[in-house]
């Protein structure tokens, strides 16, 4: 079972897109790929104030990832704690993973020509830290939470 998830407190999110840049800066990504994204719904009036809902999406780290099954080189790995990551050494950039993913989450890094996706910043997680997007969220709206069985 997945151990982690990133939770967005929509009440505190101000749609500043900080998380997207925190992620890109940490992963040293060039212009092009985004490993997480903030989106918002169309405004509707709630008690005479136009409101919108913000949503955050990175990778769902599926229980049974299609991307892992289709990867021809075994570059995609699911760790015991549920984190799904792409081994950059083994990846050949064929992007089969992106095609198999229902949300086209894996993206091509135009500099390295390899597939990349959110890995919850596992190097940081392993060092006892939070993912970059959570650590630096402008309003502390993002939380890195540990899931526990009920």
């Amino acid at each position, binding site marked *: 079972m997945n151990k982690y998830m990133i939770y967005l407190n929509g009440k505190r999110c101000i749609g500043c897109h900080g998380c997207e840049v925190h992620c890109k800066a940490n992963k040293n990504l060039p212009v092009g790929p985004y490993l997480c994204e903030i989106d918002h719904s169309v405004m509707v009036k709630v008690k*005479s104030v*136009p409101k919108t809902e913000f949503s955050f999406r990175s990778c769902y780290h599926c229980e049974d990832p299609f991307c892992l099954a289709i990867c021809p080189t075994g570059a995609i790995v699911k760790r015991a704690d549920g984190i799904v990551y792409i081994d950059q050494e083994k990846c050949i950039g064929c992007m089969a993973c992106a095609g198999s993913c229902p949300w086209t989450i894996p993206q091509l890094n135009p500099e390295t020509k390899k597939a990349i996706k959110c890995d919850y910043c596992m190097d940081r997680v392993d060092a006892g830290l939070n993912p970059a997007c959570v650590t*630096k969220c402008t309003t502390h709206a993002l939380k890195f939470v540990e899931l526990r069985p009920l």
Partner: protein
Amino acid sequence: MKKSVYSICGMCTVRCPIRVETENNRVTWIEGNQHLLGGALCAKGSAGPALVADKERPGQPLIRDGARGSGRWKKVSWETALDYIAEKLKKIKAEHGAESVVLSTRGGPWQDFFKSFIHAFGSPNYTNHDSTCGRNTHHASLSVYGVGRKDYAYDIKNAKHLILFGRNMFSSLRIAENLQTLDMLDNGGRLTYVDVRQTITGLKSTRFLQVRPGTDYALALSMIHEVIKQKTYDKDFLDRYVTGFDELCTFIEPYTPAWAAKECGVREQAIKNFVAEIKEEMPKVIFHPGWNLSRYKDSFYASRALHILNVLMGNIEQKGGLLIPKGPGDCGKKGIQAINIAKPDIKRADGVGWKYKHFDKGPGLAHLFFNAMETEDPYPIKAWIAMRHDPFSCMPDPKKQEQHFDKLDLLVSVDTHYSEFGWYSDVILPECTYLERDSPICVQKGPKPRLAVRRKAVDPETDTKPAWQIFKSLADRLDMKDFFPYATMEEYWKWQLEPTGYTIKDFDDKGFVSLADNPVLFDPLQLDGKFKTPSGKIELISKKLTDAGLPSLKEYISPIKPPRGMFRLVYGRTAVHSHGHTTNNPLLNELMPKNSLWINIKSAERLGIAHGDLVDVVAEDESYCGTIHANVVEYIHPEAVFTLHGFGKEIPLQTRSFHAGISDQKLMINKLDDWDPAGGGINLCEAFVVVRRSVKNPQRRIEL
């Protein structure tokens, strides 16, 4: 080698505290200071390393090698560039006097340094960008309290109700203030938001009042009216500290909620309900007096009305109200030293201090130098040094400005990037980025005051220098050896800290030195002496304004409606850019490469404009036209169109932002003279534009 250093962000002028990790002279991580912001940082903050790596910045000094604005440059050494400037300045000084040189910067904690430079040179003409930003708010504060707009801190976290008039704080992003506001909302506090359109800030509000553009003053007056009618004021506070309440009561009589409802286009009951709410919540009610209120003809008076509402709440030095920022002295500590060379006893060329006595003499008013350039009254202006200030982006009508600046013999731009003014200037001196430079120690006043410092995280890889070194090198060439007698910033820090007993090592642990363990609060019943007006009281009728022949309580005049087929142009900002400073930053440009034109759904329908269509936005005299995509929205007043400031730049070396989007200030034709004689700010929202569906929208597919 891995290093970690605490510093101060420089992506915008909020200057949030940061911690920077580096490895082999490369930034690997930046986060908000954990001790102050819990790590929080915005998109701009994380895009700092992209600024450092950006090759589309000047990497060495440039001297113009063609007509002004032609974009032809000669790359030169620092020696050549500085010698060139020094020689020109010496000649100008000999022929026209030192006072014919103006130095402009941006506001902030390091102004003394630049002010001292121009004073040491012999000119009183230091100025900054604030006449296109917070001057109206600042002067409004001075007229009411005798102290400036930054002489109050807002205890938002402990407030029960925050009222924002167009203060789009979740796009302007002062992170510490944003966290306070969200905490307040989490604790059940209320947020009333007033604007001509719905914004990110308005989304978080508990009450949204969409007003007709230019009617903020009317709404604020009606709030005062209802507050007084419902006796929602602190009588003891008024008796103790305030003069002019009776005059206010008489003046406010006609400005009823029913009248304002009609004028502003809001519901009367909404105003009444609002006042009923704050009656229960006062004094923990904060009316934010505005930030960039250089907008409408009466913005100064709108800000005064908001200050007056705070006075009526009696919220000064109350938890959840306006707190007087404390300095080292209030904590029983000695302050730091900073160079501060006195202003020469010469009249300012902008008229501030002698022609206009009610304005703050500190930075004066930048736009009033143009008159002196033209008339040579009180004396000619011959050189302008713009330090990080971009007059062409800040002020309206850059083409008109070019005409004025053409009267000058020397234009110098000191900046980390090409500014529009820099592109027109004679010499560009490239400053290294905030991650590559040390800056003087500064005092951050507040309920818990601190000493803070910006420290270099990496060495510059281009031939760029920190501002202090640039100005010191220039001073040395101008025989101003006493201006900054320190060889290094470490030496200066040491001198700065001498009286305090601290050393620069004390900043290593947290990036700052805290001067108080707990918030320092004054006794709200002992505030005498805290108001620096002529009478020592809070003056609802300001003696300074009266002496200047200006009313303190100005009759409301309804703003004119845009002529048929035109719209009032309203500008603002987004959380992902610091105006024109960041539009060419690779990471931020990727997020938002250009601006759009917000237009009301009904107005758009009348003009046959669909969401996403290209529209031409045309200046009143048709001398500037830009084409951008229409953002057709429901929640913007039909009289207004809105766009983000900082786009439509015309610097070919900035390939990403070159001609991307439109420039609001270029649409403000002949608006350089449209300024507020009471508040000093330029009225930046008094321009009308024509909007039409562009012929550039694809009609048929012709090409292969």
